[in-house]
């Protein structure tokens, strides 16, 4: 080995970075257009907002297509020096995120008009956060993931408080920011521990890719670690599989070249045991940091205030897309760590405990809410709990090494995320459609069925579907059903029973909304006037998401069948 430096040229394949590049580029274009369009002749603010809306929508569609193409050719091989690793799961998660963003864009013009929001900034922030989220779903490196989380969070903080006239919005943004920063500290701390324990920040390495490990595992063959290779080629999963990490030190070696003594560096690798305490601390801290982002109890304090204060569509985007992204990353992290022999025992309690607390806290908290958006916030805490049951299933020792089962659990998580997104688009969509009346007190929904039967039906559909187990043939039923099935299969009965009990409690508050809409007619005197926007945008989204809720409720596997599986 010589001391000469080789020029470091990262290999960038355009098709791999296209989805992210498209979103970031479109965000920048939006910012430029926003500034430049004002100079165009005959331009009114309304027309400008219209153009920005179309540009955003089209770029999202483009990103969606590229993700879909990526998904079809997904090979789970790390790219960009191992910073990303696009597997089918991540790509489908990104598609769900883009779906939520598209719903946002379609419904946004009336909101922008009504609340007089700065369109250019809103769309640019949407695209930036979207890029952060889609990158997070395929992130393969802890620091990259952290940066993705920061990108998406910073954009979401601003989106939460973009209505500067609303005092609640400012409060929401500030609260979100403070607690988000808190969470980031946990994340960084955890990442540091993980690096200290394993000597790498990659989840899945390039040396032996996940595919190869899976193949070797199936054949029951040992995996040889490439000792001489630099450690950045190795991922946490390989280190943990070996149980030993590579410690690389460079030490000076003197050689005689052409009669002269030349001092060169020699890279020496030795093996050291992985410290399980550091590893657990690292995972626990990263998990807690993600819990903040996922609004899982007991780290959920921000969610009700942010949902209530933020503009409804921003709240919808925060509730759906950011959770999809963070869950996708959590799944990848958990999978990368699955080779750690202490992982299930040490983390099972942590993950299962968070799931249990979230389900109970979310469902019980929602019962006493009077504000519709706060109710949805608590409901989303509970739904996060149900998803965490699936994560607990994924780390269960019975699942370890059973790749068919892992695939099933991953599908269950993905389907649940999709179902959750579709149902919440519908619920928040109706609330946004009704304007101030829909976003406030639940009692303002009284008599909605008599006045606007179609809207009330859409909301009832979403509520019954959010209830999950209870009304079959709606998407929410299958979401929970899949998760519960896998959890029972590995024997996590206690979690499932808590989940079922929570589901009964949830029926109370979801049905309360239905009761107000269908069975009561005494609208409170202080109910704000109805201000439903005209045009086809809202009906389009509401009909489309209703169709998703019903269609995938009838044929749940269609979601994965569409994905070519």
């Amino acid at each position: 080995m010589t001391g000469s430096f080789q020029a470091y040229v990262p290999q960038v394949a355009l098709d791999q970075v296209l989805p992210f590049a498209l979103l970031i580029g479109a965000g920048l274009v939006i910012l430029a257009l926003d500034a430049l369009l004002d100079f165009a002749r005959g331009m009114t603010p309304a027309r400008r907002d219209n153009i920005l809306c179309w540009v955003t929508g089209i770029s999202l569609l483009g990103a969606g297509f590229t993700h879909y193409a990526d998904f079809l050719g997904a090979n789970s091989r790390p790219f960009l020096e191992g910073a990303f690793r696009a597997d089918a799961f991540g790509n489908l998660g990104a598609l769900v995120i883009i779906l939520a963003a598209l719903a946002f864009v379609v419904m946004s013009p009336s909101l922008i008009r009504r609340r007089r929001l700065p369109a250019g900034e809103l769309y640019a922030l949407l695209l930036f956060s979207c890029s952060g989220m889609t990158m997070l779903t395929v992130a393969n490196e802890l620091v990259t993931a952290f940066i993705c989380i920061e990108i998406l969070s910073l954009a979401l903080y601003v989106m939460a408080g973009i209505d500067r006239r609303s005092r609640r919005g400012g409060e929401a943004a500030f609260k979100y920011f403070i607690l988000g920063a808190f969470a980031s500290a946990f994340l960084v701390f955890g990442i540091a521990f993980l690096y200290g324990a394993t000597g790498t920040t990659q989840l899945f390495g390039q040396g032996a890719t996940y595919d190869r490990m899976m193949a070797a595992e199936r054949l029951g063959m040992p995996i040889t670690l490439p000792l001489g290779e630099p450690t950045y080629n190795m991922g946490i999963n390989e280190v943990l599989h070996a149980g030993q990490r590579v410690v690389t030190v460079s030490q000076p070696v003197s050689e005689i070249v052409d009669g002269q003594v030349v001092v060169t560096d020699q890279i020496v690798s030795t093996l050291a045991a992985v410290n399980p305490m550091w590893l657990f601390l690292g995972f626990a801290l990263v998990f807690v940091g993600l819990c903040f982002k996922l609004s899982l109890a007991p780290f959920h304090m921000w969610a009700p205030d942010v949902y209530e204060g933020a503009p409804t569509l921003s709240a919808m985007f925060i509730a759906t897309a950011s959770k999809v992204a963070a869950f996708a990353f959590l799944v990848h992290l958990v999978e990368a760590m699955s080779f750690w022999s202490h992982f299930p025992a040490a983390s099972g309690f942590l993950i299962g405990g968070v799931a249990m607390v979230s389900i109970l806290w979310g469902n019980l908290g929602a019962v006493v809410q009077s504000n519709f958006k706060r109710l949805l916030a608590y409901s989303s805490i509970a739904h996060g709990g149900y998803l965490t049951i699936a994560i607990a299933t994924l780390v269960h020792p019975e699942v370890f090494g059973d790749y068919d089962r892992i695939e099933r659990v991953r599908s269950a998580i993905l389907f649940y995320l999709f179902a959750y997104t579709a149902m919440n688009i519908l619920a928040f969509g109706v609330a946004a459609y009704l304007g101030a009346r829909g976003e406030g007190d639940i009692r303002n929904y009284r008599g909605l069925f008599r006045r606007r039967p179609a809207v009330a039906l859409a909301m009832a559909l979403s509520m019954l579907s959010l209830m999950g187990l209870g009304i079959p043939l709606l998407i929410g039923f299958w979401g929970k059903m899949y998760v519960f099935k896998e959890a029972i299969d590995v024997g996590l009965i206690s979690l499932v029973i808590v989940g079922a009990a929570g589901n009964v409690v949830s029926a109370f508050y979801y049905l309360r909304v239905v009761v107000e809409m269908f069975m009561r007619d005494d609208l409170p005197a202080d109910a704000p006037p109805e201000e439903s926007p005209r045009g086809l945008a809202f009906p389009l989204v509401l009909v489309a998401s209703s169709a998703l809720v019903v269609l995938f409720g009838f044929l749940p596997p269609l979601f994965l069948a569409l994905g070519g599986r």
Partner: protein
Amino acid sequence: MLLTLIIFCPFVLGLLALLLAQAKQMKYWALGILVVDLLLALYAAVFVFDWSGAVQTTEIFGLEVQTPFQMRAHVPWPLLDMFEISYTVGLDHLGMLMVLLTAGLGIFGVLCSFTAIKHREKEFYFHLLVLQTGMLATFAALDFLVFYMAWELMVIPLYFLIGIWGSKDRLYATIKFVLYTLAGSLMMLLAILWMYYNGANTYSFEKMIGLGMAEKWHMAVWPFLGLMFAFLIKVPLWPLHTWLPDAHTEAPTAGSVILAGVLLKTGIYGILRFAIPLFPHAAVALAPLFTWLAIIAIIYGAMCAMVQTDVKRLVAYSSVSHMGFIVLGVFCFNGPALSGAILQMINHGISTGGLFLAVGMIYERRHTRKMADFGGLAHRLPIFAALTMVMVLSSVGLPGLNGFAGEFPILVGAMGNVPIMTLAENPSSFHGFLRQQNYTWLVAALAAMGVILGAVYLLLMYQKVFFGKLDKEENESLSDLNGREIFQLAALSVAALLIGLFPQTVMKPINHTTRHILGVVAAPLSLGPENEPLRYEEAPHDDHGHAAAGTAQTPEG
């Protein structure tokens, strides 16, 4: 195909009516649809259904199984067939009887609402029709997920029926009803998932039986309790009954009639169809528990009924008491009690349904249900008084009416002193134990207390409402029943009388089911083959050529 048609006819045609009918015409549409449905069901019962109960062989997900179910439809669920989910429906004798009961009572649900429902009529009748589909599907479903869906499909329309058209505290009642039912059905779902992952790997009930899962699961108590939790909430058995008085009291008349007449039976039906055949060992082991709960329900329900001032609430508590009888009959695990319990399922639908109809008629006239507000009505409404008397007596269990035909065998079975019918002599069975200790009379005596108390509260109620002096001014101007109302009560009275006088016609098909269930629990009870149900029908000549005499007979074999 015919069965599918019967099940979905109310829903699909109801949807059509919702689009086409005018609000005022909707009731006639609903009536027509339900009559068509009843005719279809009768056609199936008379011409299609094979009452001799032949067992056919069929293939379900690659397994040849013997199935007693007829008129089957089996369609694997698109894209979900790898989980062995399928739309499977079929009827055996029990199912056929329940379908006939459902199709019949549905008509009364519409008839009694003709003038009672004044707002949002289209929705009301649509919900009734959806409820009908849910109930029919529940009685026909042979796939656990389809059963679960049908089970939930019954809840939603009733939730709206109570919540929108109910009386004062309807919202409280409807939410309570849904929460109770949902808690039960979630436990059922967990039990279903448990079954799927503990050897069955299918949701098809027939395949589970075909795979011999009942033997494999002989240690399983929790999944059995999960199923029973759902079914006993629906029954409802003490102490899970508290939703029932509220739901009944607040529901509109049609809701009460359907709820008492059919919905409560789905609980018993589930026990007989799924819980016992799949977990016979657990059922036998836990029979004492359910027997005593049933005894408590019988007496507690009756005592609660005695102190009610609201007629409807009284009838609701009488339901708790009567359903206790049925559960008692089921868990005695002997021929007469089981046959009596199944017959009582139909009887209770007729008599309690009739009582709720009567309460609805008087409520429509007087807008009160307090007994204190009535008195001496027999003077003003003689026809109403006479027809209600038949219903009350049928509910009390007067010999010659249907209630007696059902309750008597239950008491006989509980007593265990059936000379020809051998009970379980095995001390590990509850009844065997009691019988060994000469204690079966205790169960029977406590249950018989329920009959006596039933006579007390129902006849006292009748006396307070109909006899005495007509001393309330508001009651002076009440009009007697119109033709539509007379038809409702008279039709049910005729049915009560027919079953009371000729119980053997109904008992014959019931005994098929009884024999089946007893065959299922024979192994855990270690019964001999001579244990056969009480038979009301004329016993056929056996191999030795002599005709069996009397009402209770051992069958051949």
